[in-house]
């Protein structure tokens, strides 16, 4: 028995039951039948033709006019059939797009991958968790020939695919910067010119750029409108904000970026973060800076990666595991 005959038999059975005694059972069966129709991609006009065949077999004495009317109904339903088929093909396309985005997201991971440098005097940890599939946060490390380490953390305002493309641009301009222009202020000034010229005018970037010199243990840094980081002074056991002023990248091509310097002693910790950390929303409002520092302090004696992971876990719990913004935290801890 082919598919149409099976469906015809099923349908005739439902019709017969309902015509003889109008039970709930028949209604239930027709609902089931309609799901089966959708599953097997039967169009509305095909269904009307099925109805006509069934009723002619069940009730041979029906007036001709009623049967003719079904032909018109069938014609009228054709447009619905077309719309239905269009819907089917859109669903296929949608599935393909979802796949493409998944591929793009994993490509982003690969393309933007950065190697955490290994230094005997500095323990480095990093965690970055996107709120959606593609992250707007970005961090990057560059190891220089003279042993210095550049670190950058950025938040691309404007999410999704345009932001991801923008990030690749940043990464490649950072990687292709000559070794003699490592100064964080210069890095930001160069990137600002790149972003100002190339990026869609509604998209902006905040970025913190730092340079660690292992030979004299100084940290130079500049900020382009980025969330200030923290500095843990281990001798005094206090946290200070790494204050730095500077305009967002991409607003004014003549923007200048001041450079700040900090001496790092053994045990001191530099914490860089995205606004997904400080703007973390809790049930009773926003995360207070003191609360955040409390979490960091709790784990400050651990290794750099452990601090990052543990603080993330605490904030994830605080937000009920529903991340609203991309979350990035970088820890640099001087160990020798």
């Amino acid at each position, binding site marked *: 028995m082919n598919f149409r005959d099976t469906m015809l038999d099923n349908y005739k059975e439902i019709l017969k039951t309902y015509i003889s005694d109008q039970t709930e059972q028949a209604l239930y069966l027709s609902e089931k039948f309609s799901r089966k129709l959708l599953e097997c991609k039967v169009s509305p006009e095909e269904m009307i033709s099925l109805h006509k065949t069934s009723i002619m077999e069940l009730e041979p004495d029906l007036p001709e006019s009623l049967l003719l009317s079904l032909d018109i109904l069938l014609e009228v339903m054709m447009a619905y059939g077309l719309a239905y088929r269009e819907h089917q093909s859109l669903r296929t396309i949608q599935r393909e797009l979802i796949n493409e985005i998944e591929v793009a997201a994993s490509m982003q991971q690969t393309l933007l991958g950065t190697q955490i440098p290994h230094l005997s005097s500095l323990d480095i940890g990093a965690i970055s968790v996107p709120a959606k599939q593609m992250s707007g946060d970005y961090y990057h490390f560059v190891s220089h020939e003279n042993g210095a380490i550049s670190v950058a953390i950025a938040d691309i*305002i404007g*999410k999704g695919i345009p932001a991801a493309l923008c990030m690749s641009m940043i990464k490649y301009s950072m990687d292709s910067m000559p070794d003699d222009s490592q100064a964080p202020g210069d890095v930001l000034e160069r990137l600002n010119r790149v972003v100002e010229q190339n990026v869609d005018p*509604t998209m902006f970037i905040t970025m913190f750029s730092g340079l660690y010199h292992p030979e004299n243990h100084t940290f130079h840094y500049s900020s382009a409108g980025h*969330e200030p980081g923290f500095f843990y002074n281990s001798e005094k056991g206090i946290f200070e904000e790494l204050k730095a002023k500077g*305009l*967002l990248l991409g*607003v004014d091509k003549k923007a200048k970026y001041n450079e700040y310097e900090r001496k790092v002693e053994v045990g001191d910790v530099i914490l860089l973060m995205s606004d997904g950390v400080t*703007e973390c929303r809790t049930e009773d409002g926003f995360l207070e800076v003191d609360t955040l520092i409390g979490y960091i302090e709790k784990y400050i004696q651990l290794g750099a990666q452990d601090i990052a992971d543990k603080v993330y876990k605490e904030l994830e719990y605080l937000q009920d595991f529903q991340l609203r913004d991309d979350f990035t935290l970088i820890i640099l801890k001087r160990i020798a």
Partner: protein
Amino acid sequence: MNISIDVREQELQTTITLAGEIDAYTAPKLRETAFPYTEKQYANVVIDLSGVSYMDSTGLGVFVGLFKSLNANEGTLKLVGLSDRLKRLFDITGLADIMNINSVAEGGV
């Protein structure tokens, strides 16, 4: 997560009063509504943010966009009624130095 946008057009300036939250969900609506007022030449746009309880970086992006558009058309943008939290956002991003920002809302124009 909602925003209300009220626009009052006067001869010399357009006042846009916002209330609610400006984030990735509401920012597009704000951009669409406010942008046309920035595209006229010599437009003076005042945005009152006293009713805004939350704003994230996407919202900030909208204001930079409006600011750029007004600059290009020789207009002015003034933001009034910023809460401490919002003020901090404009301070950190360096925008407070280039934009006209006032934490007190201007009464009875």
